[in-house]
């Protein structure tokens, strides 16, 4: 299969910069997810890779071949659209045959390929159905089939599960991932749903406001967010942030909250910003009788083995993931502390994480 490389890619529409100078290498056979809130430029990036949009500047390399200004039809890339874009005037079989016809395959070969693909996706019984009679999940499968049948160099998917209902989405997530494991094609998958991204991606690139902010494995991105934005965007519930009203020196390993000292990982860098933020994942916070930030239990969501408490404090609301054994009545006063090792300090001005033993920028 193939490797996709973006070099200094930029796209602007009139005055609006949709994608800012981006560099990215998507490795062979990788399931790569572009993740970000809507309007962050992830779909534009994908469309540039596909050839549906031409970049303002920069380069796109596909298997080391410069395809920046090639037409979509000349790139040998398949695209799965959010709304599937199955041709409504053709039945399922004709939809699957459409890309093959253009490539000049013989009828017998087309039939063999369709057979193969429909078996893989379990849509054999649908081949003669009209597209309009299919359910969302089946449309999704046919759209995938139309992409696979050509055996392209890479698959691009633009929020292909966005229109499915929740139950089905989970199932399709599994199927998609299994499909990728079976055919091992380089895949670029665009989504705004961090759960989808975490569960499917080999690597994830997080985008915001036209910039790629961080890329790495789901674990890296979850545990070592490089910016406050990544920390808050990834994870459900999101990361908690506690404001720190002092600057951070190099090699500092203590911070002051509410007049009390707390341990944090020793910082490698520092910041002069007068307000910085301490970020802690909900599962790394706990209730304590000793030193802690005082708050009031405001809500409690029961999730089987665990529960999520919402605690109001003078520093804002915190979500704390605790064991079900923990007894916390709504309205009761509690104190919360956190595991020092997993705390990350973010610069209040630049939003960037301050480097420490656990966090490295670049």
């Amino acid at each position: 299969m193939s490797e996709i490389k973006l070099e200094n890619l930029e796209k602007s529409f009139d005055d609006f910069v949709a994608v800012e100078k981006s560099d990215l290498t998507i490795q062979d056979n990788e399931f790569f997810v572009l993740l970000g809130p809507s309007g962050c430029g992830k779909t534009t990036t994908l469309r540039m890779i596909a050839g549906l949009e031409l970049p303002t500047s920069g380069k796109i390399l596909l298997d080391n071949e410069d395809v920046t200004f090639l037409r979509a039809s000349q790139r040998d890339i398949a695209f799965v659209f959010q709304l599937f874009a199955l041709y409504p005037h053709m039945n399922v079989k004709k939809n699957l045959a459409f890309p093959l016809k253009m490539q000049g395959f013989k009828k017998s070969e087309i039939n063999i390929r369709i057979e193969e693909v429909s078996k893989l996706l379990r849509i054999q019984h649908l081949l003669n159905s009209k597209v309009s009679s299919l359910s969302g999940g089946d449309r999704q499968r046919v759209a995938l089939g139309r992409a696979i049948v050509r055996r392209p160099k890479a698959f691009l998917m633009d929020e292909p599960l966005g229109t499915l209902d929740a139950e089905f989405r989970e199932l399709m997530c599994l199927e998609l991932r299994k499909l990728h494991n079976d055919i091992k094609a380089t895949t670029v998958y665009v989504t705004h749903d961090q759960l989808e991204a975490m569960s499917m991606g080999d690597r994830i690139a997080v985008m915001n406001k036209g910039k790629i902010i961080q890329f790495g494995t789901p674990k890296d991105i979850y545990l070592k967010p490089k910016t406050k934005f990544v920390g808050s965007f990834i994870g459900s519930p999101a990361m908690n942030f506690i404001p720190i009203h002092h600057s951070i020196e190099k090699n500092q390993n203590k911070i002051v909250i509410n007049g009390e000292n707390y341990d944090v990982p020793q910082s490698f860098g520092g910041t002069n910003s007068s307000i910085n933020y301490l970020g802690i994942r909900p599962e790394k916070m706990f209730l304590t009788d000793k030193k802690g930030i005082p708050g009031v239990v405001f809500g409690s969501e029961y999730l089987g083995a665990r529960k999520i408490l919402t605690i109001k404090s003078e520093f804002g609301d915190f979500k704390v993931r605790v064991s079900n054994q923990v007894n916390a009545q709504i309205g009761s006063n509690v104190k919360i502390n956190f595991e020092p090792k997993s705390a990350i300090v973010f610069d209040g001005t630049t939003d960037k994480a301050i480097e420490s033993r656990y966090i490295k920028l670049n």
Partner: protein
Amino acid sequence: MVDTSRSPTESSGFSRKLAALIIIIYAVVTLIPITWIILTGFKSVTSSITYPPEVFFEPSLEGYVNLFTTRTRQSQEYLEALPPPETWYEELVRSREMVIAGPSKFFGRYANSLIIGFGATFLSVFLGALAAYAFSRFKIPLKDDLMFFILSTRMFPPIAVAVPIFIMYRKIGLGDTHLGMIILYTVVNLSLAVWLLKGFMDEIPREYEEAAMIDGYTRMGAFFKIVLPQATTGIAATAIFCMIFSWNEYAFAVLLTQFNAQTAPPFIPTIIGEGGQDWSAIGAGTTLFLIPVMIFTVVLRKHLLRGITFGAVRK
């Protein structure tokens, strides 16, 4: 008590009946002249000019025979000397003390109408679809102004430019030619076609043609294989409007055509019998003239209805 048997958006029985009544009255009023001309086509020449007009009459095909033939009056002796008539229409003509001298020009004029009508319709829809697609999809400088300019060609009655067109056509040799009439009707229809079709093209999601382009097709290929089939409704609706105009057009046809390319509308009213207009032949000609455009509309009717409500409900 509140009647809950119908939804609040449904109209009441009375207003529906009233609406139906108004439509029926309107239909009757508009259909009377058409019915009358069709009936006239089945009258004999004498019956067609009887006063007061006959509502009940003995049907005759004399009008149709007169429409397709030219006849000459002969003396009684001449007629008696002829061998007995071989066909029913010869017999009919002889009973009026005439013989058939040859075919009339009607068939040729009718064929001209078909060639020019369908030719202009095809060309308007084809060019209109291309232009509409371009306007719908591409960034074109001064797009809105161009669209307005296209529309502005219909802001005056086409006949207002008849004199310049007449002179121009004579100079470049397009007068009284099929091509000339096809071009003229296309020009008149094009603004309607572009505006109508652009609306339909706008409704077709770009993803379809993008999918086709990724599947290996050029933009032109995607246009013909994906966009056009999906615009069928709009194309049918546009085709009906273009066809009705070019089929019925009278003024330019009178002005610009004479022999070669004369269409049926200027020809039919000039059918002269003995001692004036041959009304039964005119009735017959009109009836035949109605048929193609009726068939065309009925065939495309399904699309026309969907065409008018298109875009009202999004799937």
